[in-house]
């Protein structure tokens, strides 16, 4: 780690709110590969499942906003993580669904390039996963 990035890292730590809100998984979000990101959130060998549904356009006209809708039909789903495999920092988000929430989320993410988007759902002791490729294109000038 260079001196500058170490300082930036420490600065980031100091800037962390000492609020009541939940922690932020520095290690997983700082991971530069999908494998490390998954490791960082405790995922190992998740099983592919058709019950994890990713609804997103196959082609995004712009990588700055890629809408993704995710839901899990696996009973007892308590968390969902979104990993954009080719992003510089692949882990995009992790949602914890407590009693009262349905395992569903819709969000907009940035994608640097065409990539698989991997979703991992946590249900009981299970880890289930699905992926979807989203192509990022170069747009025109208009709109």
């Amino acid at each position, binding site marked *: 780690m260079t001196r500058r990035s170490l300082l930036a890292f420490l600065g980031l730590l100091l800037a962390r709110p000492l*609020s009541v809100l939940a922690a*932020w998984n520095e290690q997983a979000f700082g991971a530069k590969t999908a494998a490390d990101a998954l490791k960082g959130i405790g995922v190992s060998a998740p099983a592919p499942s058709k019950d994890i549904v990713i609804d997103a356009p196959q082609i995004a006209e712009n990588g*700055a906003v890629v809408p993704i809708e995710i839901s899990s039909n696996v009973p007892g789903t308590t968390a969902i993580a979104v990993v954009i495999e080719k*992003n*510089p920092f692949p882990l995009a*988000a992790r*949602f914890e669904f407590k009693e009262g929430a*349905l395992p569903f989320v819709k969000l907009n993410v940035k994608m640097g390039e065409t990539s698989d988007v991997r979703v991992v759902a946590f249900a009981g002791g299970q880890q289930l996963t699905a992926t979807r490729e989203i192509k990022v294109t170069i747009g025109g000038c208009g709109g």
Partner: protein
Amino acid sequence: MAGPMKMRATATGGTTEVRVLMTHPMTTAQMKDQPLHFIQNVVVKQNGKTVIEAEISQAVSRNPVFSFRLKGGAKGDKIEVSWVDNKGESNTIETAVA
């Protein structure tokens, strides 16, 4: 100073659909001319009880928009969404289910 938020919560057939908008630059480490500045935590509460806790990264688009679904929900239920970013700034919005 955090920019405005906007939220709509509607009850339909035993489910409450929550759509929340947040004003935030969500800058990334790749942007050379701008400091890294992004929301890290989002919490959703239903009548004071935490139902969703999210950790998010700089990969979430500028001016984040989320949709969530909550079980049950009657008109007038209180929904609260708050966020905190990497600089410790935060904002909260509360609305009644329509």
